[in-house]
């Protein structure tokens, strides 16, 4: 529905949105500018000040690359753990009475309600006391509690749109549980699995507080990066900033182009 006249408030809101977007995207140009200003000479392509050189150096940085490998490993493991957990949790919650479901849901969500640092610390204290010293395993344990809750919520949202009459009809026709699962629940939840997996991986890769408390000196990419930043600026950080900013800038351009074309078409 359109209105004959544009309202003042709408203009104000658009302004607010514009400023908000500028604020949110501000780090991108800052990182690019810092990289150029401090360490890189854009006109220098092969010398010591060149961007190419420094990004290459980034890839040669063993600590960061080791961290990257660890992050990927932990990410895959966490995904493999939390997607089944979240699925099981969602299915269990779906079948419980409202009161029991509330209790179970509170237990599942509790790790999200406390600081990630606390979760990481608790994991470290308890499991290291039981003999597990590997930073990677501890990081997986620390992250999984929180991320499994997120995947469970995704699956619960998906379950909400499941037509319950289908289930009733199937049972009425005498379908055994495996068939019910295969023909009703699985197809409905299946599309959510890749989304949950991607979410789990992204959350795991970017997790900072829980990971840093659990992983010790065996740092992941994100924690290695933050440790270095705390210690002070360096060319490696600038290179990392540039490498991290570019994909986001590209994605932003794609979104802007999409927005323009849909507006013209609609």
């Amino acid at each position: 529905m359109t209105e004959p006249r544009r309202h003042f408030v709408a203009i104000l809101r658009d302004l607010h949105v514009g400023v908000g977007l500028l604020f949110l995207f501000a780090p991108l140009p800052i990182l690019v500018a810092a990289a150029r200003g401090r360490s890189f000479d854009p006109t220098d392509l092969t010398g010591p000040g060149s961007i190419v050189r420094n990004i290459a150096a980034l890839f040669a940085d063993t600590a960061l690359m080791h961290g990257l490998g660890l992050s990927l490993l932990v990410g895959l493991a966490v995904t493999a753990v939390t997607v089944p957990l979240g699925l099981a949790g969602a299915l269990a919650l779906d079948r419980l009475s409202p009161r029991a479901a509330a209790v179970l849901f509170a237990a599942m969500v509790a790790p999200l309600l406390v600081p990630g640092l606390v979760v990481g610390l608790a994991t470290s204290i308890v499991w290291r006391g039981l003999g597990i010293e590997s930073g990677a395993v501890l990081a997986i344990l620390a992250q999984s509690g929180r991320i499994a809750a997120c995947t469970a919520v995704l699956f619960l949202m998906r379950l909400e749109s499941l037509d319950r009459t289908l289930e009733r009809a199937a049972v009425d026709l005498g379908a055994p549980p495996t068939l019910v699962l295969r023909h009703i629940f699985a197809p409905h939840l299946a599309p959510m699995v890749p989304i949950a997996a991607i979410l789990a991986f992204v959350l795991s890769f970017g997790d900072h507080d829980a990971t840093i408390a659990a992983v010790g000196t065996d740092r992941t990419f994100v924690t290695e990066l933050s440790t270095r930043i705390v210690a002070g600026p360096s060319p490696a950080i600038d290179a990392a900033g540039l490498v991290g900013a570019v994909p986001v800038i590209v994605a932003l351009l794609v979104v802007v182009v999409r927005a323009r074309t849909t507006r013209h078409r609609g």
Partner: protein
Amino acid sequence: MAEVFRTFGLRLGALIWLLVGVWVIGLVVAPFAGLVARSLVTIETRPVEAGLELRHIADDLASARRDWERATDPERRAELDRRIRLLTDRERWTMRQTSEPSAEPNLANYADPAGVRSRALLTTLGLSLLITAVALVACWPLAWAAALASRRARVPLLLVALVLPYGLLEPLRLHAWDLVLSPTGPDGLGSAWSMLPAMIHSGAIFMILPIFAALVRFDRRLIDTARDLGASHSRIHARIVLPQAAPGLAVGAAATFLFSFGSLAVPWIMTHDRGSDDFALLLWQRVATTADEGIAAAYAVSATAASLFAAVLLFRLFGLRLCDVTPWRCRP
């Protein structure tokens, strides 16, 4: 409980309950119980010889850490990491050999003679409330605009645009803010204020997403009808839009508050580990400097208690029940 077996069969039902059990016990109850237990145990060192030994190790550790900060070469860093790990292990082993856990659980770890902890706790709580309030006002129009825009398009472009900045890793985002805000001073009050924009930046998504979720199914015709009846924009917002968004606002506020309160990355990076006002940062500094996990555990338990208490309070403030924020509907 039996319903699970009835729907999914014996084997699958057992698997589901096994997974849920492993999750709740292994990832939630056990770690937290262990944390509380550990916080109640104080370490008493046997005098003199042990103290001296431990002090040597502590000095070595401190100098190794300083060297690490100064080192720029990754090889050197890796080497220092190994040394720090060795020293930490030795410290722990020495402590185990020369000290005893207290026979009975006690609250000594929670003692706060200098009031440092309490002050940091209160400061952080206050800062988090402030950040939540600012984020609420700042993010509300963003989420509202994104919800409106998502009606026409199949892909909610504005929402994607609001989420995209978080594709940049958090340390890098904070580093950018640090570059911009560091002139205001690395310590004390300067840091607290420099943390504000960074905290809002990192926490905005926790406010935007829940509000968006609450508003996305909002019936636009409600606004048209209200306009038709002669209501002004402010009245429409107050009487129609806000009540609809209320659950989202509550969840957003709670999530933003919990994030601000518990975030380590923001104060750690923004103050370069030199700040002393933020509770999470304080906790981390204790973890890094003492081998007695008990004290750190006590900090952590206090943080947890404060977090949960604040979360419940915020919920009650907005008049919400747990079922209002669960993905399944409330039964009246």
